[in-house]
């Protein structure tokens, strides 16, 4: 049975380290598929102007397009070029919750993420996405420093 490892990227260099770690892990496991995920932070409970609402679908498409072309597609291509089986997913939502949901949906056995770079006040108040993921995930999580 193929093992599936989910790699959560955040568009920073910590993501690169997460990929490197996952590659190493996959190499050791053998038959292994890598699922590269980028979650665009988004909440359905924010307040918007009517104009923002009218433009929302267009913006969403642009956001997905941007995340795919800049982050996910290059990562998936690089993994494939290195001989790994890889797929990419971009989705909106709460980062920790969505990463976990995607992992469960796709039968992933573990999640690898880079250490979050959230700063100062926000981190103290809400905890970083990484912390939330570690606390609430349904599968083992590896945080790469």
């Amino acid at each position: 049975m193929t093992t599936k490892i989910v790699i959560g990227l955040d568009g920073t260099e910590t993501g690169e380290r997460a990929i490197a770690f996952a590659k190493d892990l996959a190499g050791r496991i053998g038959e292994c598929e890598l699922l590269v995920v980028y979650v665009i932070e988004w909440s359905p409970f924010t307040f918007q102007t009517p104009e923002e609402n009218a433009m929302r679908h267009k913006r969403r498409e642009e956001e997905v397009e941007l995340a795919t072309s800049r982050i996910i597609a290059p990562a998936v291509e690089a993994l494939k070029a290195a001989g790994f089986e890889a797929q990419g997913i971009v989705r909106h939502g709460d980062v920790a919750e969505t990463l976990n949901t995607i992992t469960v949906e796709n039968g992933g056995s573990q999640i690898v993420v880079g250490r979050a770079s959230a700063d100062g006040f926000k981190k103290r108040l809400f905890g970083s996405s990484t912390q939330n993921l570690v606390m609430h995930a349904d599968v083992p999580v590896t945080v790469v420093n």
Partner: protein
Amino acid sequence: MMSIQNKLGLAALAALAASPAAAQEAVGLDDKINQAFADFTGPFVSFIFAPFPGTGFPWIVGWLVVAATVFTLYFAFVQLRFFSHAISLVKGDYSDPNDAGEVSHFQALATALSGTVGLGNIAGVAVAVGIGGPGATFWMIVAGLLGMASKFTECTLGVKYRNEYEDGTVSGGPMYYMSKGFNELGLPGGKILAVLFSIFCILGALGGGNMFQANQAHQQIAGIVGDYPGWITGLVFAGIVFAVIVGGLKSIARVTEKVVPFMGVMYVAAALVIILMNADQIGWAFGQIFAGAFTGLGVAGGMVGALIQGFRRAAFSNEAGVGSAAIAHSAVRTKEPITEGFVSLLEPFIDTVVICTMTALVIIITQQLIVDPETGNYMLNEAGNAIATVDGNTGVSLTSAAFGSAFSWFPFILAIAVVLFAFSTMISWSYYGLKAWTYLFGEGHTKELVFKVIFCIFVVIGAAANLGPVIDFSDAAIFAMAVVNVFALYFLMKVVRQELASYAERLKSGEIRKFEH
């Protein structure tokens, strides 16, 4: 706090007050704008508020209440049957995670609410209770509950018949369901209705959605810093609105959209605290509301007076049947237009049944309305057209005095809330007006700019004019939208019924089910 406010206000006005002649000229300008405005809008206002022959009952109020009642019966009390389902939809229980990132039901509801929650809930209710007595509250709640069905009908149609453009943006609202819906059913005249609606929507946007707001915002600021010419507030507001809608300064709009909901929650919380502080009076207050609803308790016009005021302010506050919410809700991308209808029926409930009732209860419970101890009826003011109040307050100042009697600092919070509510309502209505404008004249940068500039000019006029002509014109323009909209809804309601039947069946069979989140 007051001294700081006063000092700030005085400092700001020092330059203007430097020359008394200039100040006098400015006040003279206010009067001229006011008179010209009243003369110009008079015939239109008289027509909209004309009473049924031989009665004092405006036909337009009857028109809206009959419509709300018809929709309530036609959809077999949809507002009760699907109330909890509407809440589940707003919570996102039925939202597909793969659609995350699109406008959510919650966001559509919040956006539409920020266009309606505002001065109607604070000033409008005070006017209604001040003239119609506590009994007006009862009729206001009845109108709010019935209005939920009107909102449901128009918002479902708004989503169903919206235009989706290739670039992914959307335009929707009554003008689209009138033209496309009538066409689909093979009915003539849809286009004419759509054009008429658009004209009234532009007037409503400039009136209730703009001038009334600017006017009340000015009253609030003047109440704190002292009297000064309204056009000054108008210019400042117009500048900010211009920066947002023309200059694309989204940050101001975003801040407002975030602050306004908190203000709303705080307002309700403060009202609840005051009501609880006077817990022993709650029974008495409701007694007054029920007794007043059927006897008038001495108010001008008696029971009918209470009823007219209650219905009129509810309609103005929650805009059910007016068609504005249909424009706001049409931005949601959903496979089921009717879900947006369910969500929208919460609006009149939150706006009127909850928030307006809170305002009314606070005014009644803090005993701002003067009762004749001998008869137990309310005493009328000198003019005999409204109930005498403590210190003779009316409108926002009546609400402000009621809250201020419990918390001395609250009038300042209320003043900020009114200004912010006014601003967010203006932003919403600038969008509604713009959609009507582009429907008439086509989409395009220059065409849109023309409307936006006109909108800003009316901010200045609204702030400078007296409340009387402005409030009359605002109500008249918004009700004129309802005349056309409700007429169209009668023809299109069978489309909504088909959608409702199909959805209800699939919900029952389990085809439509909650997503695991």
